[in-house]
């Protein structure tokens, strides 16, 4: 990745974060914290990694992304909108009566959403089924799924990891957004899933642990995953919940709360300033 390409990704990540704030502010509810921690991975996936085409969102040969941590739909929707799957202006309809932008991802109503999710622990299993189905039919597409670090407290996640390794799903990448916070507080205080990387490795996955806000590290990890044969890959992304909006960073309360008008303005000013700085470079 050239410095120019990296800057373009950083600019896009800023726009995705603005979409997250706009969506949750308009809805007066939703989940900004975990959407912001995952904004960089959403951006990298939809602007550099995934072989997808907004003009053919159901192409059988496309790569798939399953947002297993479905409550962070505002982040996914902001990435999809900026990628051209639907108008960015529609983000203001999030969670409203009559909108196709449901509170959690709905594959029937939202262009570009590959699986309906929201109930934690299920998306990763669905991604396993997709990876198996593609492999079985000789389709060379890849499947990516993103889980929360609180989500991996669900036992089903480990059933899925066992399955992925057993069927050698090397077309599957299981990513964990390790922002360290869940609704009730720090994950190690609520119910520690640590050590995450060692657990995933013990289940037979090829594990990498990276800074989830560093596009160079994300690129390297996904390239390594693509080159890994015979076993599924896992990437643990160390992130900051609420990343990019100063008052939301590392605060559990922003898991499922929308900004009020003053908070929204402040957040947007911060992101606009960051955007201006990037564009001036």
């Amino acid at each position: 990745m050239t410095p120019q390409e990296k800057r373009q990704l950083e600019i896009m990540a800023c726009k995705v974060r603005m979409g997250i704030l706009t969506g949750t502010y308009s809805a007066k509810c939703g989940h900004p914290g975990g959407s912001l921690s995952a904004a960089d991975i959403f951006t990298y996936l939809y602007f550099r990694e995934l072989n997808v085409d907004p003009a053919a969102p159901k192409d059988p040969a496309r790569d798939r992304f399953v947002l297993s941590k479905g409550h962070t739909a505002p982040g996914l929707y902001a990435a999809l909108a900026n990628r051209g799957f639907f108008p960015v202006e529609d983000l203001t309809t999030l969670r409203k009566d009559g909108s196709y932008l449901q509170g959690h991802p709905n594959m029937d109503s939202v262009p570009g959403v590959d699986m309906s999710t929201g109930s934690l622990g299920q998306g990763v299993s669905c991604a396993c089924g997709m990876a198996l189905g593609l492999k079985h039919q000789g389709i060379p597409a890849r499947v990516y799924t993103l889980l929360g670090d609180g989500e991996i407290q669900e036992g089903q996640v480990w059933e899925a990891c066992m399955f992925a390794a057993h069927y050698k799903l090397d077309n599957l990448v299981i990513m964990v957004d390790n922002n360290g916070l869940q609704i009730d507080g720090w994950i190690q205080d609520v119910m520690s899933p640590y050590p995450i990387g060692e657990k995933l490795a013990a289940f037979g996955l090829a594990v990498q642990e990276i800074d989830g806000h560093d596009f160079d590290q994300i690129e390297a990890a996904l390239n390594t995953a693509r080159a890994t044969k015979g076993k599924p890959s896992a990437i643990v992304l160390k992130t900051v919940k609420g990343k990019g909006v100063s008052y939301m960073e590392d605060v559990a309360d922003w898991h499922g709360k929308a900004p009020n008008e003053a908070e929204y303005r402040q957040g947007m000013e911060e992101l606009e300033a960051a955007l201006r700085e990037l564009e001036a470079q």
Partner: protein
Amino acid sequence: MADIIRKATREGYGRGLKELGAEFDNVVVLDADLAGSTKTGVFKKAFPDRHFNCGIAEANMMCVAAGLATTGLVAFASSFAMFAAERAFEQVRNSIGYPRLNVKICASHGGMSVGEDGASHQCCEDIALMRSIPGMTILSPADEVEARKAVRAAYLQPGPVYMRLGRLAVPVFHSEDYEFVIGKGEILQDGAQVAIIATGLMVYEAMKAGEALREQGVDAMVINMPTIKPLDEELVLHAAKKSGKIVTCEEHSTIGGLGEAVCSTLSERYPTRVRRIGVPDQFGHSAPAWEVLADFGLCAENIVKVCKEFIAE
């Protein structure tokens, strides 16, 4: 009826799957360590590369089936009813039902007739649970032939289908030329004094009861209702209008099963008195299958008794 062949509906499932696999390349089968019991082993033997054992992990299996469906494959996800419908209920609801994915959930060992295994495995709530999921089609075949034909019908109908199958060998009364249509019931004996509407292995018991009643001068209609949802409401209304008295029979809880479905239809469209034969609000117990069924009145003798008392009122 003495020399009638007895087979379990799960055997029809295995045979039907094998036939379907030969006809359609996109049929795949998932199991949760029960391929021998669910009879999917028959499919596995014929098409080993299209059978995927998921181990004892039904929650994952249902969502894997959903994922497979998004790639154009049609997964038949198999386990015992207790684990397919009950343990994995929320996975079925959210990952299969909500996105309306083309998954066929085929659950053997439904009802009281698992017998000796006892209450932990006697699944009498699966139909109630599956009825509550929007858009779920529910099939409950009565014999081996009907089960085999239902497998093909389930494949040909897009969207989620739940099929309940039994462990117990029961008489095969349908002939090979029987045509199974989802959403259609079948009048097996016509009559005007009472109508018996049965599903699953209770259908043959209802047929025996219908014959016994006829011998005793009682004119009973006997209906096989192999689709619980969508219910053949027109047939229910026809039976109600003709007989004025309905008796439902199922090896399922009287809460949420065929009986309640019939009552819902009738109370809204043609109020008619109904007696429900089924499992009351209690758990089962270990005993040989026919004994535990009889303990709950799930037998021809009790159907005869209930019908006669009902008519006498």
